[in-house]
């Protein structure tokens, strides 16, 4: 939203839609607004008549006018009370809709990779700003229209000539207000954006304070943040200038009619106005028009701008069209579980490919481990097989079909997902029809029965924040084990588990029918696998754990370093990379003895594995 026209359009479109969506509520709101405005319409007339009556000694008549006014006041208050539920019926569905949009949009955008963490703030903060300002605007604009209308009706009933004096300056002032509104909206937006920038920079600075000081970069950061603060002060001054312009428009529409009526008083008197009529006219301006104008200008000035700006920001980040689900197709007979043909992938134009020209066949029932140094593209490979990213060249097939069908494969990523709900619901995420016995059996298999007991059984509510990373990963693993999908991809899904727990879980998966692909964090995962794919950035090699050291220097390195580094240096007999116990979760390379001696034949082959 850069121009006043865009600001106006955003307001017109979304707010207009919201109002049109609830015609019955709008009708009710209009009706009760009219009732609410009754005292405004009656006030000047009643005061004027009462004054004339008091002046001429007709006290009884004056009293009855005041009674009329009191009745009108009671009616107005009643209308006001009934009005708000009608307004709620317009605003609350609109708020519901925004909450849905933000949630849906955030989830969908996050599917492409990084979680949209700003969405929570949008949900709690920005949606509430819209609700408050939209509601406020309805109250203010609607109130202004009805109060002004009522005052004008009262003026006309009093003496039509007075209305002629009041309307032109009123309209003039409002036109001026409308003219500066758009430009002011742009300034206000700068203020909101600037605030977000300062918040972001300050958070980053506070989070990295140790690094900032250790690098001696305080001056750089202070200058950058200082510039943002100064820009924000300038934006604040610009907004203040527009607020001053708003006050000018208020003076024109609110005060000028008053002076005109006063100046024209003799003329009005000549045309038959009594002092009561004059007083009634002034009362309409002072107690009808002026308060309505004041709330309009201040309300629109602040909240109207905020509404336009915040709405635009929510809509900027609203839901894109959901991707079309892949057609349900029958698996191609005799096709391998997973097949990659000449697959390359890079994260952007001109970026060096992460994976280049990779061929891979994973037959049904295979157990493949993928190893390689960190950042070499193992997770990218997992995402390609799962169909979460598309190759820049080549083809990925699962059961002979394009990947991405959630019915065919399960991907468990590093960051295990556990939600607030019962443990059973969490475990049966992929298998909603699983029986309690099946759930318990899967839990026993992967080794989470003790955890289930600790959490209070399968029916207990899980509080994700109370769980350790390892607990969460165990739940995710059990969930995958229970899944009916034939292909399971574990992307370092057990790296927070200690080595023996990881071994137990992986062995459970090896026993499970179906195809298993493990992105390995520890070399022990490779030792357990039937076959191993070694990625080293320039080459990919496929083979058995026992055979690979002979052909892959990197694999030799991986085994040597992860496995027997101190042994080589110092003759340590255990052949284990010693690691501080406190750090076990991050790096523990214990071997599982029987993993290396699988006698299974190496199935399939790597036809080509070349890069750069």
């Amino acid at each position, binding site marked *: 939203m850069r121009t006043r026209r865009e600001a106006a359009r955003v307001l017109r479109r979304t707010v207009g839609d919201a109002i049109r969506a609830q015609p019955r509520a709008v009708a009710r709101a209009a009706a009760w607004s009219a009732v609410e405005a009754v005292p405004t319409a009656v006030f000047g007339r009643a005061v004027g008549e009462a*004054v004339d009556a*008091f002046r001429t000694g007709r006290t009884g008549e*004056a009293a009855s006018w*005041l009674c009329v006014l*009191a009745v009108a*006041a009671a009616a107005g208050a009643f209308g*006001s009370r*009934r*009005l*708000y539920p009608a307004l*709620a019926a317009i*605003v609350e569905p609109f708020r519901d809709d925004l909450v*849905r949009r933000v*949630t*849906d949009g955030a989830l969908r955008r996050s599917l492409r990779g990084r*979680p949209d963490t700003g969405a929570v703030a949008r949900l709690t903060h920005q949606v509430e700003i819209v609700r408050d300002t939209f509601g406020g605007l309805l109250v203010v604009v609607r109130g202004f229209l009805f109060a002004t209308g009522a005052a004008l009706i009262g003026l006309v009933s009093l003496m039509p000539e007075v209305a002629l004096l009041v309307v032109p300056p009123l309209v003039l002032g409002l036109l001026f207000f409308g003219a500066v509104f758009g430009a002011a909206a742009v300034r206000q937006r700068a203020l909101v954006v600037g605030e977000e920038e300062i*918040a972001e920079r*300050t*958070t980053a*600075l506070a989070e*990295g*304070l140790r690094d900032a*000081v*250790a*690098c*001696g*970069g305080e001056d750089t950061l*202070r200058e950058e943040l200082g510039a943002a603060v*100064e820009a*924000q002060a300038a934006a*604040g*001054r610009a907004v*203040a200038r527009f*607020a*001053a312009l708003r*006050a000018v428009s208020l003076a024109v529409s609110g005060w000028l009619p*008053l002076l005109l009526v006063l*100046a024209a*008083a003799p003329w009005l*008197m000549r045309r038959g106005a009594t002092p009561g009529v004059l007083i009634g006219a*002034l*009362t309409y301006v002072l*107690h009808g028009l002026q308060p309505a104008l004041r709330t309009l200008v201040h309300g629109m000035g602040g909240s109207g701008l905020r509404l336009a700006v915040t709405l635009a920001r929510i809509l900027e980040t609203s839901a894109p069209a959901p991707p079309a689900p892949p057609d349900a197709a029958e698996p191609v007979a005799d096709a391998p579980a997973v097949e990659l043909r000449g697959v390359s992938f*890079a*994260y*952007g134009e001109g*970026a*060096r490919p992460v994976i280049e020209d990779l061929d891979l066949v994973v037959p049904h029932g295979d157990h493949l481990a993928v190893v390689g140094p*960190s*950042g070499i593209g193992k997770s990218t490979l997992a995402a390609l097989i799962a169909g979460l990213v598309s190759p820049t060249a080549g083809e990925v097939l699962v059961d002979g079909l394009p990947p991405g069908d*959630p019915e065919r494969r399960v991907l468990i*990523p590093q960051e*295990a*997902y556990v*939600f607030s*709900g019962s443990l059973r619901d969490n475990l049966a995420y992929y298998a909603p029809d699983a029986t309690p016995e099946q759930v318990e059996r899967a839990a026993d298999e992967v080794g989470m029965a003790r955890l289930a007991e600790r959490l209070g059984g399968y029916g207990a509510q899980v509080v994700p924040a109370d769980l350790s990373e390892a607990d969460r990963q165990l739940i995710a693993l059990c969930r995958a084990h229970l899944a009916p999908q034939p292909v399971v991809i574990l992307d370092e899904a057990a790296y927070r588990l200690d080595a023996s727990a990881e071994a137990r879980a992986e062995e459970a998966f090896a026993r499970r029918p179906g195809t298993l692909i493990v992105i390995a964090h520890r070399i022990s995962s490779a030792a357990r696998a039937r076959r191993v794919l070694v990625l080293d950035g320039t080459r990919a090699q496929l083979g058995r754990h026992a055979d690979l050291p002979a052909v892959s220097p990197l694999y030799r390195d991986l085994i040597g370093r*992860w496995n027997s580094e*101190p042994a080589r240096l110092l003759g*340590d007999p255990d052949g284990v*990379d010693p690691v501080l116990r406190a750090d076990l979760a991050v790096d523990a390379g214990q071997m599982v003895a029987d993993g290396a001696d699988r006698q299974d034949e190496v199935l399939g082959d790597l036809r080509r594995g070349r890069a750069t």
Partner: protein
Amino acid sequence: MTTLPAASPVAGANRLLLRAAGRARGWTALVAAAALADAAAAVLLPYALARAIDAVPPGGAPAAAAVWPCVALVVASAAAEVLSELATGCAAARSTAWLRHTLVRHVLAVGPALRVPPGDVAGRVVGGAAEAGVAPAAAPEAAVGLVPAAGALVALFLIDWRVAVAIAVALPAIALLLRAFVRDISTTAHRYLTVQGTIAGRLAEALAGCRTIAAAGTADRETGRVLEPLPGLRAEGETMWRVQGGIAARGMLALLLLQIAAVGVAGAELAAGRLTPGELVATVQYAGLAAGFGPVLTQLLRLARARAGAARAAEILALPAPGHGTETLPSGPGRLDFRGVTAAGGALDGLDLTVPGGLAVAVTGRSGTSELAALAGRLADPDRGEVLLDGTPLPDLTRAALRREIGYAFARPALFGGTVQDALAFGPSRPPSAWLRESARAARADGFIRRLPRGYATPLADAPMSGGELQRMGLARAFAHAGRVLVLDDATSSLDTVTELQITDALLDRLADRTRLIITHRASTAARADLVVWLEDGRVRALAPHAKLWRDPEYRALFGGAG
């Protein structure tokens, strides 16, 4: 360690607000002048109007002399309002900016000793400072705000004391009525926020699990789960509106009845000949003015929030910031001396250690290692004892000399700058880009950086990094600025062993002449250092090569493998 003082420093908050107001002196004075002018005009105008109305004889010519004061007062009031808007905004902008500058400067000066959560710091700098910045304008507005109401009561007494008494009696009832509303609204608002928090919590969970949801194709199901409490939110929302409707209705009724009463009482006086018609109009207006203490309450509320914002700022400003000396460093090998150092609540306890210059020295132990690392480059000061670099106590050095000579790499580095290249260059001076790339190569970061969408020019925001990649960025940054001493605080813990080995090679070859203090929990890293410092119970248990220490089963037990 510096934590926030428990009591809120009220005096500090007031002092801070005064200083902030001083920064916006001119604008604040203008706010006060405009508020006074506006208040005076508001009090005088009903009287002038009354004179003008009464000056119009039925069918006669107007007394121009009676209309002109009205014109003058209206113009004065309008002008005051325009100036007040301008001055209020500008005063707030200036004092907010000053507060923010002051806070940021102090946060940087306190440094890593600051133990305030980052979101909290941002809250104080953004929201807190903005609220505090309002004070210079809100204070004069609040002070002057009672003038119209008081003036109106005085004017009423001057016009007719009976009317004044009637209105003065009615006012407290209105005040009581308004107070009850505030209570109603805050309980419903609280329930609304609770439901909203539930939805936000579910969304945050789902976002954290976005990869799982993406892979499982369950986005629709998750949306449904997150939005499950939405009907409850609607119900609470509608309750809030009902409460508000009650408030609006009662407020409206109260004001109208007050005005009707004013007309009635004044009308009786008019009938008795003690009041003119113009004075009756003035009476109704004065009744409204006298009941108009709402704006004062608003300003007082803003002032209270400003005080709270300033108190939050003052808490930060009250934290002690370490000073720096004036000495630059004579040339030397980079020898570090720790003399009788006690720090971090006893994590280090009377530690004596000399780290010889130009060697790679590993530091290991069950505790105290990170504390030692922080002391080595004065990221923290010891409670007792001193740390010297080539014979000069660290506090005597200028900040520039200190940071030039001692560099750091951390386990979880924070990166600053627009692009990846800027992040590597971050520091007191900007190394040439060829040198940055050379450092990135040494830290094994060059490979993944070049795989980013725009290589070294990739904006940091578009370069999501794993823990290992982040560590290599931190190492590259440290290599690029390396001075006499390089402290690696567990800086390779997330790397696989091959990459770590390659980086250790770079440390041994390329930076062979620097003093390298390497905090590690891996035996393989310790094995490759020249010496190992073994910390135990806050002191040095041994200082020797790894091979020699390895014979000690207790040393081996430290690494778990041989225990």
